[in-house]
């Protein structure tokens, strides 16, 4: 490998990083502008638009709804997903992989189709009113596959002998799970749950069609940016980014998941 070749590859890599991060950086930067529009030049940095966001009557309900939905989705998908992953780890790998692939089908559909078909299902067939509950149920469809994939990967190299010793010493299956298995896999489970939280908080399309009346942070910010380039939208967007990237970062540390 020549020196010049190395430099070229590094530049290409750097270009990718700029392409991925610069647009997001601009959104964050413009939330601190003192002008009425999200554009250069920024005369001086100001918290004006963050205050505008906090004072907006819809902000608190949106934040509360996002946190409620995100945490509930995180907890439910962690429990259901961990159970499924443990079940899968006990069956033959080829069959387990087929089942996992089937579970991932909702991810292969365009989100819009998932959204409208769930909406039609709730309102026309079951007569379920659209609430936060329907949003939570719907989110499970795309968060569960991630939890199952991550926890299953961990369970595949899990040393079952420790559980078997606990069982031989007289622990019930549940007791063995809570005192032996769970403490060992806890970082992975928590990390997987946080990925579910971050996917849930970030979701706009499915939430928009299954929420009925209320707002979440993404549907709130969607209403703002449809009309103009108000920097208050940048503040809300930055908040969503902090919440999702933050949870993802913690999740990555915990799971050591790399692709």
């Amino acid at each position: 490998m020549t020196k010049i070749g190395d430099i070229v590859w590094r530049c290409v890599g750097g270009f990718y990083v700029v392409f991925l991060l610069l647009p997001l950086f601009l959104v964050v930067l413009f939330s601190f502008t003192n002008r009425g529009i999200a554009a250069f030049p920024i005369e001086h940095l100001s918290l004006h638009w963050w205050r505008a966001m906090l004072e907006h009557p819809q902000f608190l309900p949106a934040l509360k709804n996002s946190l409620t939905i995100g945490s509930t989705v995180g907890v439910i998908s962690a429990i259901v997903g961990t159970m499924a992953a443990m079940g899968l780890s006990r069956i033959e790998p080829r069959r387990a992989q087929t089942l996992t692939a089937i579970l991932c089908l909702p991810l292969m559909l365009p989100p819009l189709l998932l959204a409208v078909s769930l909406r039609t299902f709730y309102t026309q067939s079951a007569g379920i009113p659209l609430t936060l509950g329907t949003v939570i149920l719907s989110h499970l469809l795309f968060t569960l596959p991630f939890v199952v994939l991550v926890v299953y990967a961990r369970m595949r190299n899990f040393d079952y002998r420790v559980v078997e010793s606990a069982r031989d010493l007289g622990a019930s299956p549940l007791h063995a799970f809570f005192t032996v298995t769970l403490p060992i896999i806890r970082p992975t489970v928590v990390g997987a749950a946080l990925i579910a939280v971050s996917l849930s908080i970030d979701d706009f399309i499915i939430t928009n069609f299954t929420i009925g009346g209320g707002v979440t942070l993404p549907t709130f910010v969607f209403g703002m940016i449809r009309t103009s380039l108000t920097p208050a939208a940048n503040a809300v967007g930055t908040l969503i980014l902090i919440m999702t990237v933050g949870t993802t970062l913690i999740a990555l540390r915990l799971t050591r998941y790399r692709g």
Partner: protein
Amino acid sequence: MREGRGTAIQLAPAAVIFFGLFVASSVFYFIVSFWSVKLYKLRPDFTFANYAKAFEQQWSVLLFTLELALAVGAITTVLGFVFAYIVRFKAGRYGPTLLFVAIITLFGGYLMKIYAWKTILGNEGVLNTALESLRLIDAPLTFLFYNPGSVIVTLIHFLLPLAVLPIYSSMRGITDIEMESARDLGASAWRTLSDIVIPRCHTGLIAAFALCFLVSVGDYVTPAFVGGTISMIGSNIQDMFGRALNPPLGAATSFIMLFASFLIVLAVSALIKSWRPR
């Protein structure tokens, strides 16, 4: 196996959610595509009128959407491949950092990424104001914005991390020993790429293309923000559930779209698989 009943119980909640929600709603959605609408109310029916109407009204939009999504899918897959290749083989100790950037941009900021491009490309956006303040242009370049190009760039930006990960996980299976033996036996860099790396990435490439293509086909938020008057099939479907209030027509349109997309994904997978070592 070891604990048959226990395993079944562990899988049950996930199965209930999958069948009770995903399968049931998809089947119901398919049934609704044969229903009719009377006075804004759905009526159980068995008619192909929705399909005929959807086909007649939407085929040109569908064709345009498929072309655009094909372009996005192809470009994103190639870019994702190059990125994964750099991470795996070229970046050395910077590899993990590059991958890290792809992963943290994967899970968050869907709306923000689209909004960011509106901020960059718009008439009062970053690019235009920068060019104006440098006195390179007098009036905003309106062609930057509200066209298929801006939609394509925006989609590529938010889909790229999604394309990188499956391709990278395919590449992880290629050992350094294989690469070195190829080189020692006199293969050029291109030959190694074409005969070893690409054939080993079939699964990753197909997964990357399918994901990017399918998400682009159904997207309606991107055209709404940066597409201006451009109509994509997703925008029209969304409209049938909103203003137009005709879910059966929307369902029929969805299934036509899904069927067409499925054919394209199959064709592209076959094309990718046909890339074999000489």
